[in-house]
């Protein structure tokens, strides 16, 4: 019973190669059978749910014009609904992409960095530092400020 920080799972990792196989032809992908079935079941359940009111729901006759109007607190709506919006949202999305890629690079690193040791840690430090510089630039330029 080791009491250091970070115990790697003592139990055996599940094998990638399942022994028996799905109908004999799917040996490698046994672990994804569950995902496939969940997707299928989930699709059926959610589709059934979303279309529930379309099938069982009440239907009103006539006078659709008023009822189908979009909600505007009782006033007739004016102008197009899909106006342009602040470029800030776009800046957030850009930052998101860049940092998402950074995070995604960190996951593979996080699982092997014990093997990589100190050099591996310094590599990631450099990577984070360069991107951290980007964050500081964006911050100081005011792209993160909402006015």
């Amino acid at each position, binding site marked *: 019973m080791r009491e250091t920080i970070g115990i790697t799972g003592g139990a055996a990792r599940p*094998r*990638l*190669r399942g022994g028996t196989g*799905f*109908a*004999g*032809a*799917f040996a*490698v*992908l046994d672990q*994804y059978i569950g995902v496939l079935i969940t997707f299928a079941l989930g699709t059926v359940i959610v589709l059934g749910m979303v279309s529930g009111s379309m099938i069982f729901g009440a239907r009103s006759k006539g006078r659709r014009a008023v009822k189908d109007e979009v909600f505007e607190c009782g006033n007739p709506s004016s102008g*197009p609904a*899909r*106006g*342009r*919006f602040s*470029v800030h*949202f*776009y*800046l957030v*999305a*850009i*930052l*998101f*992409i*860049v940092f*998402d*890629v*950074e995070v*995604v*690079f960190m*996951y*593979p*690193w996080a*699982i*092997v960095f014990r*093997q*990589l040791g100190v050099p*591996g840690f310094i*590599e990631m430090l*450099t*990577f984070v530092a*360069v*991107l951290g*510089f*980007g964050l500081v*630039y*964006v911050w*100081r*330029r*005011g*792209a993160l*400020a909402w006015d």
Partner: protein
Amino acid sequence: MTMGAALFLLVAVATVAAALGVVLHPNPVKSAIFLVVTLFLLAIVFVLLEAHMIAALQVIVYAGAIMVLFLFVIMLLNLQDDDPERGRHRYVLRGLAWLGGVVLAVELALLLRGATMGGGEVPADYGSAEAVARSLYTDFLLPFELTSILLLVAVVGAVLLAQKQRRSSLP
């Protein structure tokens, strides 16, 4: 035909259909949605090719991040359906483009049909996060570090381009 091959064919047909949707649908938002579907289906193909890690990244980075940016821009600019094109030579050019595409696809397919490539056994941890990570952080160390600079340049450039030309809080 095995179960796996049938699944591959099903996904492949759906992928091609979704890709055609990207190109054919006049509404940019729907085009983007079709592209998201294409990318998701490609992730399934990646799983079938035992690239588990890359499949997950495909969904996270492509379907979950890049396409969100596309949708944001389409909505930001409030783009409507593309205008139907007029003019006779337009139709000729379009026809030529489609013809060229079909020729390209057939040509590539014919070229690749003859190629003989092994599809043999691979190590047990092939495509796992650990295998990809080991390769990435030993053999591809320099590209990895350069990536950070690429991303830095991208974020600086994008913010410069997209922000309005007013003096910001930069001293």
